[in-house]
């Protein structure tokens, strides 16, 4: 992470505290270091000034001692120096360098004893030599060397009492160097003082620093706390909790910000509440509409059922009305005629016509009976019935025995092709026989004389999840049907036959029976090309066949095949 990245990642408080503290530390430290230095320099200068004063005083005091080479006098003059702790060593030498008197110990070998001159200051007075020395032990010293001068006064004429010869003779004073005073002062005391001063300054600096940092931090905290509060509140609101308010009572910009923020939260909350309210209303409306729709749908289904029942009723009525009309009409006709006829004079012709009327009445009544029976069977076929294990080929044999006579009467040949060892089917034998009979009779009605009807049974291989099926085909060479008729072939009361030959219920009953067996019935036909009905019955027991089968009018679940 680079510096900018780090800066960006820092909290606001850190961003303010860090640079300001750094600046504070630098400034305060610089000031204290400067102070210490100045103080150290001041101490040293003071010592130097003191030293110089001492050495000059000494140089004046020892003048006669040097002139007279009086060791005693010299030592007396120098003994004053012993009172000062800082004086390490002092000596007085004559012009030849010979030490006349000294106090203190000093090994005066610059090169051998590695006393190094670290500074050679030219003193304020030109005649004072000034050295700064440090020995190998790290002790520092100041060395001051001042020449000892002697005044030689030339006496003038006036002094000597000579007043002649004008006044050209001026008094003259000559100074003569007669030796030097050397003073070495220890800087130790000064250094200790300096160190102490340094310590004090450092402690003071530290205290000031810590205090100022504390003040800064709390100051910054004072400023950042409301901001932090704002941040926390924003975070909470971001998570959807609008109950939180920012609690900042200030008159400054942050206070204004908090107030604005609270207003914003209020309006946000209001908007959210409104939206939630809308949502709830919408949900309620959706539920309401869904219920209405469901109700409407239920009503629609109900009316569909009713209309189906109505259609059925209309169909039944229509079918029944013709034979009923015949029965009613012929009975009335016979009664009317008989009421006019003289019983004594009944003609043979009349009797024959009455017989014809009554025969018609009987046959029409039978027709009514058949219609009603079919209707009952039709309604039964849509109900659950017991399924046994049945052998399709046996049912085919039974059916052939039943219809064989009728077929031969109509000069139609029936060919049966049965595949051996067909698996057993779960079914209702009498219902299936009814279906096969119906198919063969239908085929017979559609077939002209001297044609064939073929009945085939065979195994249809297992496909996918299906465990195979048995197929029964009924193929005729009859008139066939157009597409429109094929579409409607399984509708109740739909018939292509002449009136009297069929009720229009046979195939819809058959359809119901096959569906109940979990099977399918399909038709393939074209005008002039005959008709093929295919029944597919699954080998597996229809698990839900009887349950899923509509208990209502089967036309509703009818699946037509084109």
């Amino acid at each position, binding site marked *: 992470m680079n510096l900018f990245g780090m800066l960006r990642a820092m909290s606001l408080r850190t961003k303010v505290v860090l640079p300001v503290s750094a600046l504070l530390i630098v400034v305060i430290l610089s000031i204290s270091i400067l102070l210490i230095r100045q103080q150290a320099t001041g101490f040293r200068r003071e010592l130097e000034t003191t030293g110089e004063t001492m050495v000059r005083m000494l140089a004046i005091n020892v003048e006669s001692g040097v002139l007279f080479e009086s060791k005693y006098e010299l030592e007396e003059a120098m003994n004053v120096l012993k009172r000062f702790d800082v004086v390490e060593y002092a000596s007085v030498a004559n012009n030849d360098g010979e030490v006349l008197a000294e106090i203190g110990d000093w090994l005066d070998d610059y090169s051998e004893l590695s006393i190094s001159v670290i500074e050679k200051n030219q003193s304020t007075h030109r005649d004072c030599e000034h050295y700064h020395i440090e020995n190998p032990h790290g002790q520092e010293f100041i060395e001051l060397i001042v020449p000892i001068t002697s005044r030689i006064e030339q006496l003038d004429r006036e002094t000597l009492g000579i007043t002649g010869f004008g006044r050209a003779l001026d008094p003259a004073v000559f100074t003569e160097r007669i030796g030097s005073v050397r003073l070495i002062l220890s800087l130790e005391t000064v250094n200790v003082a300096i160190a102490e001063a340094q310590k004090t300054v450092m402690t003071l600096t530290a205290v000031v620093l810590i205090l100022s940092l504390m003040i800064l931090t709390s100051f910054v905290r004072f400023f950042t706390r409301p901001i932090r509060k704002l941040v926390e509140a924003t975070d909470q609101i971001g998570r959807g909790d609008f109950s939180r308010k920012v609690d900042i009572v200030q008159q400054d910009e942050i206070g204004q910000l908090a107030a604005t923020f609270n207003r914003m939260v209020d309006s946000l909350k209001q908007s959210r509440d409104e939206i939630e309210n809308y949502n709830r209303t919408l949900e309620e409306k959706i539920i309401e509409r869904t219920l209405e729709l469901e109700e409407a749908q239920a009503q629609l289904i109900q009316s569909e059922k009713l209309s189906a029942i109505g259609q059925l009723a209309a169909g039944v009525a229509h079918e029944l009305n013709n034979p009923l009309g*015949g029965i009613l*009409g012929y009975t009335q006709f016979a009664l009317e005629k008989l009421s006019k006829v003289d019983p004594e004079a009944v003609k043979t012709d009349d009797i024959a016509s009455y017989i014809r009327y009554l025969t018609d009445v009987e046959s029409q009544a039978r027709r009514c009976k058949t219609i009603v029976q079919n209707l009952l069977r039709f309604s039964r076929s849509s109900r659950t019935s017991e399924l046994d294990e049945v052998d399709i080929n046996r049912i085919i044999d039974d059916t052939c025995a039943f219809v064989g006579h009728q077929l031969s009467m109509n000069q139609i040949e029936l060919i049966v092709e049965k595949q051996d060892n067909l698996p057993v089917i779960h079914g209702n034998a009498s219902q299936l026989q009814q279906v096969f009979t119906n198919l063969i009779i239908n085929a017979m009605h559609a077939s002209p004389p001297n044609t064939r009807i073929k009945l085939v049974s065979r195994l249809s291989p297992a496909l996918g999840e299906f465990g195979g099926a048995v197929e029964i085909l009924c193929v005729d060479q009859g008139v066939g049907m157009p597409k429109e008729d094929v579409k409607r072939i399984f509708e109740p009361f739909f018939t292509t036959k*002449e009136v*009297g030959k069929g009720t229009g219920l046979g195939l819809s009953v058959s359809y119901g029976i096959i569906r109940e067996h979990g099977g399918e019935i399909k038709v393939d036909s074209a005008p002039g090309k005959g008709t093929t009905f295919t029944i597919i019955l699954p080998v597996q027991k229809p698990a839900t066949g009887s349950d899923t089968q509509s208990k209502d009018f089967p036309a509703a679940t009818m699946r037509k095949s084109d």
Partner: protein
Amino acid sequence: MPAILVIDDSEVIRNLLSDYLTELGHQVDLASDGQQGVEMALQGEYRIVFCDIHMPKKNGWEVYQEVSKIKTQLAFVMTDSLPDELAKMAQEAGARRCLRKPFDLSEVRETVEQILSPAETR
């Protein structure tokens, strides 16, 4: 006596109307579907047509519309097991009479007599 044409796909109704109207002294012709009925009605000279509505090939309405365009004087009696509303619709469509199956023979006689009575202006 004027001739009457009966168009009906139901054999028993055809026979019944034929027997009864013949007995009443009318000359009766029979047609077993709509197509045949239209052909016969246009060719023959009939006064009344008894016409079923639900028939193969052509239904009763089609027969009525085709024939009454040309033979405007021909009286149609529609016969069917019509619900009340349908009977009303049939009359609004211009059909003179409707007989609902199963009808009484007396209704047949009255209808014929009414049509043939001098008061009937058609």
